[in-house]
Every structure is written in C-alpha cells, then in structure tokens.
C-alpha cells in the first residue's frame, strides 16, 4: 500500500498542477482541457451510454478480426512450421505480404465491404494474422523432437498429430503471438475508425475533436488505455494447458 501511494505521488502532483494551471489561465490552448472537466465529460458519456456503444463496436471489430487472424495465423503458421519445403516456397510471398502496412488495405476493404463491421474486422484480421503466424511457425518448429517421434511411432495422422502433439506443445509460445496481436487489433480497429469507418471509439474521437471537445477527447483516450489494460489482463489469465500444476515447460 505504501508503495502504491509512493507510485501515485508523481501523477497526483502532475494532475493537480495541470488542473490549476489550466483553470487559472496559466495554460491556454484549444487542444487542452483539465482533469476535472475530462472526468466530467467521461462520466457524462458513460451515463448516456455513448461511450459504451462505441466501445462495443470497437471491441466487436477488434475481437472478430483477432479471431479470424488467429485461426488463419495458427493454421498457416503450423503448416509453415511443420514443413520446411512449404516454408521455403511460401516464405518470400508471406514476407512480401507482411510488408504491406495493414492500414493500406483500408481503401480496398472499404470498396469490398463498405462501411461497417466487416471492413474493419477484415483489416484487423490482416494485421493480426502476421504476429500470430510468425509466432506459431517458430513455436511449431521448436516443438521437442521427441514428441514428434512419439507421434511417429504411434502412427498419428496429420490431424491427430497437430491437435494432440504440435499445437499443445507450441501453445505457450503461440500465446505470446496472440497477446501481441491483441494489442495490434485494438490499435488497428481504432485507426480504421479514425480514418474511414464511422463507428466505434475511433470515430467518437474524431467527432470530439471536430467539435472542439478536448475534454471528451481526453476522456476517450483514457478509456482506450483502460480497455487495452483490461484486455491484456484478460489474456494473461488465459494461460492454457501448460500452466498445469507443477510448473510449465521451459
């Protein structure tokens, strides 16, 4: 507790300075609001449900995209990791595709799907596939040889081998890719909303900015930080089969 207060000291002082510096007119910028106004704006947005609706829209697109990206990334990554010849053949193509910024697909996605959930989820899926694919391929390549030999001796076919041996053994490291992808998903979803898609928190931010509501804008940014934090904490609890009692595999 003592450490908490000590850690909270600096931000506390900063907030107080900010509050009074802006209120007393020492700082005067259109882009700046002050802590109490931000809190009030956030509270109002929370009460009228607008920020909750926007949050739902953003999370919906981010998670849908992430799920698609995870399925595609895990399967493609597993195949690349299992078969070196495939990795050698397809590797350069994937590297080239990966080099395209996901944001660059926004106009294409807009043409294909129009405004709405689909186009946003599609861009998120594209962006999240890569970290998951790369992590999965590396994780699968790193699966203990002995385990693969056990699968060989038991004459496991591809599916059984994949689901009973390879993916569980690689889970810990795939999970790292998933966690990175989760952060990417949120960033890309908000970016797409700010740039083209009239929904979600990104669009709400744009609206607040255009109507010169700096207080609301900062409230929304803080809200986004909280969401990111919560999602990451959520991901951490999903630690999977390797956290079996007795410790995880190195």
């Amino acid at each position, binding site marked *: 507790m003592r450490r908490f207060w000590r850690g909270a000291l600096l931000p506390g002082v900063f907030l107080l300075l900010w509050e009074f510096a802006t209120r007393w007119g020492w700082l005067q910028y259109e882009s700046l609001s002050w802590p109490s106004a931000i809190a009030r704006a956030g509270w109002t947005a929370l009460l009228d449900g607008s920020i909750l609706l926007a949050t739902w829209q953003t999370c919906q697109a981010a998670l849908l995209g992430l799920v698609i990206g995870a399925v595609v990334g895990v399967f493609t990554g597993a195949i690349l990791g299992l078969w070196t010849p495939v990795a050698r053949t397809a590797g350069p193509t994937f590297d080239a595709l990966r080099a395209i910024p996901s944001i660059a697909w926004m106009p294409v996605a807009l043409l294909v799907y129009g405004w709405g959930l689909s186009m946003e989820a599609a861009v998120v899926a594209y962006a999240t596939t890569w970290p998951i694919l790369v992590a999965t391929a590396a994780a699968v390549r790193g699966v*203990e*040889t*002995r*385990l693969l*030999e*056990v699968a*060989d*001796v*038991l*004459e*496991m076919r591809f599916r*059984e081998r994949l689901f*009973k*041996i390879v993916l*569980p*053994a690689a*889970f810990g490291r795939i999970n790292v890719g998933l966690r990175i992808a989760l952060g990417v998903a949120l960033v890309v979803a908000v970016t797409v909303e700010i740039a083209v898609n009239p929904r979600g928190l990104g669009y709400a931010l744009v609206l607040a900015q255009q109507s010169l509501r700096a207080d609301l804008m900062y409230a929304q940014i803080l809200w986004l930080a909280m969401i990111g934090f919560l999602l990451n904490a959520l991901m951490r609890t999903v630690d999977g*089969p*390797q956290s*079996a*009692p*007795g*410790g*995880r*595999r190195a």
Partner: protein
Amino acid sequence: MSLADRQISTPAGPPIPAGDRMPAGAPALSIRDVSVTFGAATNRPVLKDITFDVREGEFLSIVGPSGCGKTTLLRLFAGLMAPTSGSIQFDGKPVAGPSRQRAIVFQDYTNALLPWRTVAGNIALSLERHVPSRAARDAQVAALIAKMGLERAAQQFPTQLSGGMQQRVQIARCLAQQPRIMLMDEPFGALDAITRQTLQDDLLKLAAETRMTTVFITHDLEEAIYLGDRVYVLGANPGRIIETIEVGLPKPRNQLTTREDPKFLAHRHHLFGLMQGH
C-alpha cells in the same frame, strides 16, 4: 478382449493372438550388413557392417561405450531413421518407417512425455485412435497404471513425478500401444541406483509375463548381463559387434544372488576386458 487380458494379466496365455505370432524360430528383427554414415560419404561410418538377428521373445541387451552408435542402432530398429546401406527386416518385411508394432522407450522421459497431460492421459495417448470406446480405454489405462504401480500418480502431471515414475509412465504408454517388440534406449540411465534396480526387476517381470521381444540398450555392463538373455557388445569407431554372449543365468533373476553368481561374474570379467580394449 482388453489389453489387460491379452498382454498384461495373463502370464500363462500367449501374449499375442496366435495369428499374429511368427513361426517358431523366426527372428523378430533381422539386420543385414547395416552401415550408417552421417554427412559426407567419406566420413567414418557410425555403424559398420552390422549383421544379427533379434529372436522372437528374447530379451537382448546391447552394451557398448558412449559413441559406439547404440542409440543409432535402436533408432534404425524403430524406423526413425534409415541405414546408409544394408537392410533391416521386421517380421520378414523391410522396416520402412516408424510403426506401432515397435515401441520405443526413450532415455529422456522428460521430453518424451506430454507435460500438459496427466499420467493417465499420457498412457491413453497410445489408445485414443485404436480404442474408440471411452470405457474400454479407461479400463485399459487403469490396468496399465496398476501394472506399473502408478495408482497414486494417475491424475498427476509428469513434472510432478520423480524420474523413476516418469519412466514408468513412458513404459506404460509403450505397453498400451501393444507392440510386438519393445525398444529401450538406456531407459534407466538417468535414475539413481535403487530406483534403477527396482525398475530392472519390474521390467524383467513384465518381459516374462508378456513374453515380449525386448531390445535393451545400455552402457552399463552389469545391467546388460543382469537383464539379458543374450548380450551384444558393440565396439566404437566404427560401431560394430565385437562379442555375443549367451547369458544363461537362471530366471527369475535376483539383485543379490544373480549378481553373485560365478557365471555373472565371469561374464562381467569377460565384457569388462573387452570394453577396456576399446
């Protein structure tokens, strides 16, 4: 018929249905002029011109110094690798790859067990595709758990067990696949002396009950003699067979009396001399 009936609990009956048995006297494995060279053909071979038979139902020990290619030989038998030249036949057919009929117990049990599955789950792995009925599978797993003395560990994870227990799990999993031959790669090499002796005796009992053909690799002379019906001695550089002995010690064997038997000591002296020369 459950696995327990077939292979484990009825020492009197044939371990494998008559139809599956090979004609009496036919070798389980026959190895002809097998050589293995890693890397360039100009390199020294790891194994050179190995020729021998593993007899049906016997316990064959293969002993040799480190680096003599023992493990390579066992991997050839398992079909996990192919020889550079020569042929290996199992049941009269060339070994083309790994098979459920040839179980292999690896030395490094920590890597060979699935850390995310319990003991029971690890054993069930061998049965899942072949015994679709959940109840039948559970019964077979339970029988093997009892057989290997793993009752108290059944719901634990491998990392929670001692080395000896983990190796028991691996042996149980291999038994579950109902192999025709059991290939064991220094399975007790990493265990302490007491655990090792207990496992040796349990293995002998198991081999006697199931009459399963077993190839047991070790670098421990005494272990090779104590367990084997026959012992092959491999020399290093290149790996080749330098001696074959028929052990001829009475069974069941006993950690005290067998090891004090003059014949045991004579074998030990003989093999020790051979190994010294290499």
